[in-house]
């Protein structure tokens, strides 16, 4: 094992930079799912939602680029399409879990199957997408800051989406803990009956949170295909939806901790890519890939899981039930 190739500054910078990049799609999904779960709905379908977002974003971007010949603008519209596709999947989840009171585990897994098969089907059906590549969105180094040695390269040389996602972490935290609406979201995840008797609509809150969460996961999928990979392949998300769910529990439903978790995942993922690229046979990079799952279990093992979980998580609300 060529360890000397690993412990170099260039390698470190490359891994950290890529780690931040790789963290973004998962981070977006995690932030969304935190909002969803805070409202008491557990959407296990993120893997399917991210795939739908990824395909919608990629296909939209590709066709717009072909049609208009523009760059960048189609990618932004593509991201919007990913967001919208996610919201549509969220609507399906909401109808299943909230209106029909289907078991949320079942609903979520159905969503995964639907997302996986539908994206594969549509990807195959639209033959133009076969080996298509798109231009995507260029990096935007931040003036001055990106010139700082090491740190500048790691932190301030990214696509605008990355900076935006950082802002979303703050936004989510403010939303949940500093706004009246966040108070309602957290309340509906704890005691929906109390929210209903306060004259608020449990349904509306949960629908909105499920839609927002799912839209963000769709956006995450689109960021992956449109901004980072510039291509789509079957199952392109490769389990990121499941990792996002793991990280929600890892973060104890806190956006800032979620950022840390997503970065950890991103760095582990980047490291794993680099190690594979080094061509070392014995290096057990699979264990790096396990890291998010193992860490989540470890965090749950030593944390007090019961006290922070939204009390009504996963339980459908029946009007008039006491």
């Amino acid at each position, binding site marked *: 094992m060529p360890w000397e190739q690993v412990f170099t500054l260039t390698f470190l910078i490359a891994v950290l930079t890529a780690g931040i990049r790789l963290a973004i799609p998962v981070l977006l999904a995690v932030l969304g799912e935190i909002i969803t779960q805070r409202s008491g709905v557990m959407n296990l379908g993120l893997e399917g939602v991210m795939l739908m977002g990824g395909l919608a974003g990629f296909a939209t971007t590709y066709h717009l680029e072909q049609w208009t010949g523009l760059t960048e603008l189609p990618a932004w519209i593509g991201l919007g399409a990913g967001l919208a596709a996610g919201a549509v999947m969220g609507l399906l989840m909401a109808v299943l879990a909230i209106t029909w009171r289907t078991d949320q585990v079942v609903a979520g897994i159905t969503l995964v199957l639907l997302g996986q098969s539908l994206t594969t089907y549509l990807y195959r059906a639209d033959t133009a997408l076969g080996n298509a590549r798109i231009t995507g969105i260029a990096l935007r180094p931040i003036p001055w800051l990106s010139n700082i040695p090491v740190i500048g390269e790691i932190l301030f040389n990214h696509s605008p989406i990355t900076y935006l996602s950082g802002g979303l972490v703050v936004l989510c935290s403010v939303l949940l803990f500093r706004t009246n609406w966040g108070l309602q979201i957290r309340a509906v995840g704890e005691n929906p009956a109390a929210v209903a008797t306060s004259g608020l609509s449990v349904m509306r809150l949960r629908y909105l949170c499920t839609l927002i969460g799912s839209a963000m996961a769709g956006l995450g999928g689109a960021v992956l295909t449109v901004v980072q990979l510039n291509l789509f392949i079957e199952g392109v998300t490769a389990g990121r939806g499941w990792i996002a769910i*793991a990280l929600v529990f890892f973060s104890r439903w806190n956006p800032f901790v979620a950022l840390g978790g997503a970065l950890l995942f991103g760095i582990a993922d980047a490291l794993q890519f680099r190690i594979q690229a080094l061509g070392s046979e014995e290096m057990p990079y*699979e264990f790096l890939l396990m890291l998010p799952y193992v860490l989540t279990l470890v965090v749950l093992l030593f944390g007090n899981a019961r006290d922070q979980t939204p009390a009504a998580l996963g339980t459908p609300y029946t009007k008039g039930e006491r």
Partner: protein
Amino acid sequence: MTVDQLTPTPPQKPWTHRVKPFAPGIGVLVALILSGILIQLSGANPFEAYKVLLLGAFGGTRQLTETILKATPLLLIALGLTIAFRTKVWNIGAEGQYHMGALLGGIVALTLPNLPAVLLIPLMMISGILGGLLWSGLAGLLHLKRGINLIICTLMLNYIGMLMVQYGARVPFRDPDGFLPESAKFVEAAQIPRLFSSRLHIGVLIALVLVGVVYVLLWRSPLGFRLRAVGAQISVARSIGLNTSQHILAALLLSGAFAGLAGVIEVSYTYTRLKQSISDSYGFTGILVALLGQMHPIGVFIAAILFSALVIGSQTLNVSLQIPAAVAGVVQALLVLGVLAGQAIAQRDT
């Protein structure tokens, strides 16, 4: 508990129960119509497509054999999950338990190639079951001893199990002479015997027997009674003195054993080696099969055949009508959605 006696305490009404058995049928119908629209949109005649699909799945001995073979792991996993779900134990870790079963069974096949089949096959089966038990038991311990959400435990262990197989196939058990990151082919004796001269194997028979076993277990045995009691109202089960943790663990272990068995059978017969991918998401699809089959062994049997037929039938669809084979998954998902919708509507209060 202060139940206002006049509020609708039992929200179910008699007619609901009469409609409920038809909910799957209605759901299937709606799903087929929606899928038909999808097929129409991609430029093929839906009726022709369904015909091709049916013939591709059931049209001859070869097709039927393929359908049954593909249904076997789904059936095994879904039968195990039927036990778990009846106990309201949300084991969604069948995929990981399946992988661990395959891994342990595969390791036995690779490390003891000189054993005769009569010893090797049972040993593999036992190891496979142990693999499933180990993984579901681990989730059970984390859940019962540390209070970690069972859905999350089983979910986390899924990917850990899958990655263990990938690592095992790539590094320690890799065939040094092969180009791919996979093990050498198992010896002949490690492939479970066929039934007569068909391509069907003993695993199919085992799965069929287990349909009956699960029925008897759940509705004709004290253990099944207690498991269902825990599932129907855990607080009552606890109050009458049942050790609910033990029963939850039992349900988990049983479902893990079924998934592990499915894993070892598949790796022994279908894949015949440890490789990077040894599952067609059976563990996840099995959840939907159990659900579509109304958590009843007979229903689960029908659902497993249905899901498998869609996959096998759609392969010919791809060849003859150029419809992507992934349509099978879409139809499966729509089927489940249709049934869920049917159930939801049947359970409406007014």
